[in-house]
């Protein structure tokens, strides 16, 4: 049965439990504004009842500690959403800076500074003005002035984009130290949690870990994996370990080819981080996708305008009666060698306005036909495909390759229709430091469907051009052997009347004639009719597409130290047909040596590897788009990207707010609840105290046998 003493014990336990619960309330109120703090509630547990004579007597209550009100799934979801929102927010900031480089023109009388669209129009309009008076020097000055403005604005925009890209790289690199600090802290907390609370919620430590993870989520895209003993591993979204329970792995950054890359150990994790989310993901997406996309468009615009205008200016006659030549070109713009970098390098190289070729080829200086043609470039597609005419390949030839073993490398090349193919170079180890090589184009060329009445050639898969037969190309077409005979042309015969051959064909044909030993021949193109005439060309001389000259196979010999000693000089003129579309044929000049005499072929003891390739063709740009159409599309696409990311960011922030609200509803301190709990606990404590007091009175009375004495 219960005794007064047991009642005392129950009451003292209740008072202790109430005090402990009040302490939890006090802690909640104290931490109401602590970041990451999770509201705690007291755990009450009824003490095991005492059974005496079959009758159970309650033994009071014990406060067994506090439990944090936490929903791990909700917290993880919030972290994920934070990663997305941070990424889009960082990307949006970068995009806003990017779009500021291309402000919309209000159309007011004063043009907006840096308005490339306006510059393009003004530039071509200056040629239109020159049509009216082609010899007028002030109109020519206007052409140069508008060209300078255009080139300046494009190159400035490109420089700004490069600066933005570099700035983003630096900002992204700056994030790594924060990431490393947080992952180290999380690893340390993991250790503490695993030691102190391997089976239950670690309360305050858990709060701190969650807070660190939340901050980490702002910075970088992560996945969380619960491990044994309440441990945690964290990886990037692409799976590289950042934290493995008590260990953390340092993220580092460094420049690779001028751009900031990120490493975990020796692994380059940049690509994974870019798509992973977080601030870092946003920066990297802007730096590796958005800015390069915009830069590529600007490069294409600059390349198209520069090359087209230069080509026409060289083809006409300037005010001094001079036409441009390869040796003395009359270039208005700095002639770009490739699309990449054309915007940044765009500049006006012409200083003398008299060098603007307003007149047509061979015509008097008062003629304006070339000015008309250049003005009309505004209405034409400037971005035709550029056929590859040369490519280089840097190839390591492994000394471990057995004799008669082969190493292959490949280079992407383009035909005049913009289709791309892989030219394959096969190296065969002949022993004694000697290698043989051959080039082939194992591609299928498609018919030219864009120009009516032009002949097209189809080459079978695996076909190799035979350089020994200049006039006939044989190979194995899909489905059987095929022989393709190039069109035969007799002296004086007009060919190509079915369709005008472009200039490239003329040049190729001319070199083909030379290669075939047919000299003294004039090739002319009048009104789209190709005419071949010449004194020494005899009837029956057959002229093919550009021919594969001798030398498309050969031997490379290295000395004992691995340096290439034969051939001793640059090899050029290794040409072969195969890229023709029937109208504009392609000749590939494969140079074993790059500029400055540096060998592009090296023999090393390392494994065979192709380390670099370059070629000068392009697939063509924005089919049928004029410069202004192209720029309009560009600004629309950039604007659409900005608007899309803006909408994405708004939606993600709304989602974050919603999740945050849900989480706060569960985990943040509710002062009303705490006040109510405190009031309840106060009442409970007062009641327990009162009971205790009464018990004290009762036991005093019992001790004094009902007589009031001094004992109380």
């Amino acid at each position: 049965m219960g005794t007064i003493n047991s009642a005392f014990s129950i009451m003292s336990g209740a008072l202790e439990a109430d005090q402990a619960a009040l302490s939890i309330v006090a802690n909640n109120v104290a931490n109401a504004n602590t970041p990451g703090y999770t509201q705690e509630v007291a755990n009450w547990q009824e003490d095991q009842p005492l059974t005496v004579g079959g009758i159970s007597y309650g033994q009071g209550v014990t406060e067994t500690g506090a439990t944090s009100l936490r929903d791990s799934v909700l917290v993880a979801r919030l972290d994920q959403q934070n990663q997305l929102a941070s990424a889009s927010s960082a990307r949006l900031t970068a995009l806003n800076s990017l779009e500021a480089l291309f402000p919309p023109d209000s159309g007011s009388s004063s043009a907006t500074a840096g308005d490339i669209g306006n510059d393009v129009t003004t530039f071509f309009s200056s040629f239109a003005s020159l049509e009216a008076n082609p010899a007028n020097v002030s109109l020519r000055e206007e052409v140069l002035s508008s060209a300078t403005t255009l080139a300046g604005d494009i190159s400035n925009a490109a420089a700004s984009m490069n600066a933005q890209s570099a700035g983003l790289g630096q900002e992204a690199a700056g994030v790594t130290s924060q990431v490393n600090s947080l992952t180290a802290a999380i690893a340390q907390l993991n250790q503490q949690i695993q030691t102190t609370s391997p089976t239950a919620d670690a309360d305050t430590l858990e709060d701190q870990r969650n807070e660190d993870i939340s901050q980490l989520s702002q910075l970088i895209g992560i996945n969380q994996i619960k491990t044994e003993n309440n441990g945690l591993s964290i990886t990037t979204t692409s799976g590289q370990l950042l934290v493995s329970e008590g260990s953390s792995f340092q993220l580092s950054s460094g420049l690779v080819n001028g751009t900031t890359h990120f490493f975990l150990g020796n692994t380059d994790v940049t690509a994974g981080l870019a798509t992973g989310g977080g601030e870092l993901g946003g920066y990297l997406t802007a730096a590796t996708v958005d800015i390069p996309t915009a830069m590529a468009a600007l490069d294409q615009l600059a390349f198209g305008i520069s090359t087209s205008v230069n080509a026409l200016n060289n083809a006409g006659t300037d005010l001094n009666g001079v036409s441009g030549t390869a040796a003395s070109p009359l270039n208005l713009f700095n002639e770009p060698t490739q699309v990449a970098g054309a915007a940044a390098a765009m500049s006006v190289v012409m200083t003398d306005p008299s060098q603007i070729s307003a007149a047509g080829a061979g015509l008097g200086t008062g003629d304006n036909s070339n000015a008309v043609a250049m003005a009309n470039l505004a209405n034409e597609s400037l971005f035709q495909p550029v056929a590859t005419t040369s490519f280089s390949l840097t190839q390591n030839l492994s000394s471990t390759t057995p004799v008669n073993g082969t190493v292959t490398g490949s280079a992407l090349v383009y035909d005049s229709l913009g289709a791309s193919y892989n030219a394959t170079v096969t190296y065969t180890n002949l022993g004694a430091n000697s290698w043989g090589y051959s080039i082939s184009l194992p591609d299928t060329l498609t018919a030219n469907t864009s120009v009516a009445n032009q002949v097209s050639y189809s080459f079978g898969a695996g076909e190799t051009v035979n350089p020994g037969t200049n006039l006939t190309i044989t190979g194995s077409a899909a489905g059987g052997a095929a022989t393709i005979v190039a069109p035969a042309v007799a002296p004086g015969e007009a060919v190509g009347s079915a369709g005008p051959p472009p200039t490239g064909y003329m040049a190729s044909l001319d070199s083909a004639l030379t290669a075939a030993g047919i000299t003294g021949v004039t090739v002319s193109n009048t009104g789209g009719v190709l005419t071949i005439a010449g004194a020494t060309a005899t009837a029956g001389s057959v002229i093919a597409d550009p021919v594969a000259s001798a030398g498309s196979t050969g031997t490379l010999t290295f000395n004992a130290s691995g340096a290439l000693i034969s051939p001793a000089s640059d090899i050029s003129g290794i040409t072969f047909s195969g890229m023709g579309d029937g109208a504009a044929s392609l000749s590939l000049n494969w140079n074993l040596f790059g500029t400055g005499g540096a060998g592009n072929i090296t023999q090393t003891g390392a494994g065979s590897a192709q380390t670099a390739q370059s070629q000068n063709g392009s697939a063509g740009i924005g089919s049928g788009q004029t410069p202004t159409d192209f720029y309009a599309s560009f600004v629309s696409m950039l604007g659409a990207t900005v608007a899309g990311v803006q909408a994405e960011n708004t939606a993600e922030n709304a989602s974050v707010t919603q999740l945050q609200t849900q989480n706060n509803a569960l985990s943040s301190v509710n002062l009303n609840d705490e006040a109510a709990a405190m009031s309840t606990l106060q009442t409970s404590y007062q009641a327990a105290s009162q009971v205790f007091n009464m018990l004290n009175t009762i036991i005093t009375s019992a001790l004094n046998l009902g007589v009031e004495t001094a004992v109380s």
Partner: protein
Amino acid sequence: MRVDPTYITNLVGSLDLAQANEEQLTAELSSGVSITSLGQNPVAAGENVLLLNQIQQDDSFTQSSSLVTGQLQVADSTLGSVVSQLTQAISLATSANNGTMNPSDVESVANQISGILDEVQSLANTSYQGQYIFGGAQTASTPFSTSTSTSPAVTTYNGDQDVNFIRTPNGQKIQLNVPGSQIFLGTGANSVFGALNALIADYSTGTVNTAQAVSDTQALGTALNFVSQQRVTIDSSITQLTAASDAVTSSQTQLTAAQTNLMQADVGQVSTQLSLAETQQTALEDVISQLDQESNSLFSKLQ
């Protein structure tokens, strides 16, 4: 109340957005332009580039058109003077051919026609803004010169047969010049200088071979008609340019209206949006102020 650590942050974020919105709307009202960045309306931003391009091309053509119209009018006026001179020469030749003049008068006619030839040659060498307008593409050198070493004298053309065109924004090509040789040195009887030089030779001795002189006079008449025909080409170009210029001006007006509609801020709409944004800002500030007092929890009621 629940101490939600993100209440204030969220509200301040909303307040920032409201203020940014107000700034944007105020900028639109002050500048009158509705699109100040590409992301606001990507499609309109692209369309704006195209419209401005067309407007500027139109504007450029209008200016060029004005310049070349001046040149064509000078050419037309010059040919008008040539016609007058030739008419006068025919009149002189006709009077010399009627057999009533003494040799001295005939020589005088020869001198007068020689003066007319000089005048016509001077007209044929007319320049506009420093460029000879009847020299084809050889605009820097004098197109016509006469050698008197032979009889009849020979006028030679130093220009070429080049014809310039101007291209209108819609692709129409309008001829800008007629080579001088085509006007003044037409083949056979169409040659102005040939006929004039022949007549001078006919009358210079004072003795008239009437049959030859009549024939040469008729040739001058034919050449006069030929000049008038060539003048039609010039007139036709002026007409075409005027029509093209009018069409371009009309197009430019429409395009400008379209571009203005595209980019101009709708003052009524923007003002309403601004008013709403201001109301939102005030409401947000009130809420933040209320929350800031933090006197709403039960704790304030506890004694």
